[in-house]
């Protein structure tokens, strides 16, 4: 059906765009490759886990930076984890901000950390929106009877 093909093309284009803009990297491909019949929702499942975990981490980070005496070790631990999980799903831009964030932590630069927190929050919400859009498109394709052209 035309709509299916169109939808599929939309999906592909959107995905390519995300890769080009650096929101996603090859790790996301790996993720998609892991999806199969036994786990048809694997990607969504893992990404959802990532969202939940990240939001928790971001909350913790905000709290930690608000403290009178900032515990940089704790912040570093959180950022490290965020870095790990974002890299696992291929959220490249989030991961990159985390790297800079950790440097500021090491320097105990409160302003740098706050700036990075702001940045990482922004990147996170961006990639979250993008991925949610992606998943929506996928569902549309599937609903229209098409198949998802992964891996790409």
């Amino acid at each position, binding site marked *: 059906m035309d709509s299916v093909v169109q939808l599929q093309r939309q999906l592909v284009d959107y995905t390519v765009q995300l890769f080009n803009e650096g929101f996603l990297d090859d*790790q996301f491909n*790996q*993720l998609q*490759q*892991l999806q199969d019949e036994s*786990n048809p929702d*694997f990607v969504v*499942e*893992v990404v959802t*886990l*990532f969202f939940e*975990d990240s939001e928790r981490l971001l909350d913790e980070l905000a709290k930690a930076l608000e403290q009178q005496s900032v*515990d940089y*070790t*704790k912040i*570093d*631990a959180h950022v*490290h*984890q965020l*870095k*790990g*999980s974002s*890299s*696992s*799903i*291929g959220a490249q831009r989030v991961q990159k901000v985390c790297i800079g964030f950790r440097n500021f932590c090491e320097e105990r630069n409160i302003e740098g950390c706050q700036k990075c927190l702001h940045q990482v929050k922004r990147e996170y919400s961006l990639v979250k929106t993008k991925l949610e859009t992606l998943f929506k498109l996928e569902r549309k394709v599937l609903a229209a009877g098409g198949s998802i052209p992964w891996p790409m």
Partner: protein
Amino acid sequence: MAAMQRVASSLGTSASTYGSCKGTGVKVSDQFPAGLRVLVVDDDITCLRLLEKMLRRCLYHVTTCSQATAALKLLRERKGCFDVVLSDVHMPDMDGFKLLELLGLEMDLPVIMMSADGRTSAVMRGIIHGACDYLIKPIREEELKNIWQHVIRKKWHDSKEQEHSGSFEDNDWHKQGNDDAEIASSVHEGAEGVLKDQKKRSIAKEEDDAELENDDPSASKKPRVVWSVELHQQFVSAVNHLGIDKAVPKRILELMNVPGLTRENVASHLQKFRLYLKRLSGVAQQGGISNTFCGPLDSNVKLNPLGRYDIQVLAASSQIPPQTLAALHAELFGHPAGSMVTTVDQPALLQASMQGPKCIPVEPGMAFGQRLVKCQTNMSKRFPQNVVSAEEVAPGFVAWPSNSVGTVGPGSNLGGMSSQNSNMLMDLLQQQSQQQQSQQLSSLPEPSRVINVQPSCLVVPSQTSATFQAGNSPASVNQNYSRSPMIDYSLLSPQSNNSSLNIGQVSNGDLKTTGVSGYSGLGSISPLSSCSVNPDNSSQQVQSSTMTIRAARQLPGLGPDISNFQVSYGAKSSEVLDQGPLRNLGFVGKCTSIPGRLAVDEFESTMSNLEHEKFYMEMNGNKVKQEPYVEFTDNTRVGIPILSQLPPTSSDLMSVFTE
């Protein structure tokens, strides 16, 4: 080929048991590597889910755990149900390296570390702690496909070791006996250099050797005796009571009075214990590796100056191979987010090690003290404090107090009387602990608990440190910190054995890197923030991580202060570091001076708290394989020799202290 066949057969066996422990009950065919039973531990559930999926696609049998403590519990309950463990480095409830060490000690499982942190220093720590591999996140499926190689490799090496273990142990036993005798004689005679190797054999040793030799082959075939913490403590008490030189399995058995325990069990355990002690004492002999060791670490040096010094002291005093010291320190210090980085220590260690040997032989007492003094000057002001305490610490031990070499050096007070020494050690330990406390260690939990582990020898130190409280140690340092210098020691010893970075690589090959490193890792793990010890200060039952520390304590010389050590470690203050190593040193020293007496007491008390097995495991890489407890003994063994080396009066260390 034979080895391969053995490995293959063992694998085949394990393969056939693949399905046995699986929760799902899926029968895994014997097509290795399919069906490999993997346990994944990661607090990041995103990664966990991802890894699980990838491993399943590799046809492995996967069990996931988001908490290290839960994973440890699971592994303990279902020993033999897993072939390999994948663990993240940064976890909230327990440091991945600590888990790594524990696993290596307790169950000799291959452990692969994972982390988003791919810095050389972090990877180095993984190596030091005994990880089979270190994967950098994000992990790809291809990397996971290959993890089975570590299982095979380990099994292969294990079977090789066992193959040679009989002859090796026999030969080694003699050698060790000799060495022990040598140490003892040198100590008692006030031999100039602790490092000297004298070929004297005490009659008692010969007897023991003969006994052990005879027993060993048979013991190895007997059903394994689980040397629990309590049992080991009893053993150590008995040994201390008899005196390490005169401890024969029969008498030990009688003293222990444990039903069901055979003389062969005791003999085998004793042999390991002696090996351990020997390793501790023989560490100093090895040198040169420090270079290698220091090399990689340089990148992140954040080591406490103290840590360095400690090692120096240790090297100087206890003849611990620089590398070992370095390794220990590295471990201890390097724990927190890799910040502690051993690298710093290493350079220091190297120096220390270099200096150490020189110092000691030259001027038995003076050299050490002098060196210490020198170190002191270098050290931060904290050191001076330490220095003082070092003096008090037994000569030999002075070297250990990691905190400040200075403490060791000034050891002028040491003068070396055994009783004095022990007291000194205690004092030193106390001081260290105190210092540490004031400095940073905030939490060190009851030192006594942790440190006491040291088998027979080291027990004493722990007492001094606050933990002792048991009052075994003459000095009864019990003051707050019992940070176990011992811990350092233990770290050292394992390392020393290796003389290479691999901590825990006993020269004999006994030590398992895992064990050693674990131990040291333990020490390091306890950084204030992460140390399990810290939080638990009060309780002996330090968290699992602490436990490891404790185990370390048990290691002769490691001192119960492991927890302390850790704490200090976390504090990221040099102080912390100083304390630890120092303590260990002191602790060790004490042991020698008060052989058995202190050690036994403390050991027992600490043992109960500590996870004995862990400790053992660490110390004894090889031995662990066979008996978890064995590991421990080795450690203890190591500790004891050290003690012997540092006779209150004769050892150089002692004199150094006095200096």
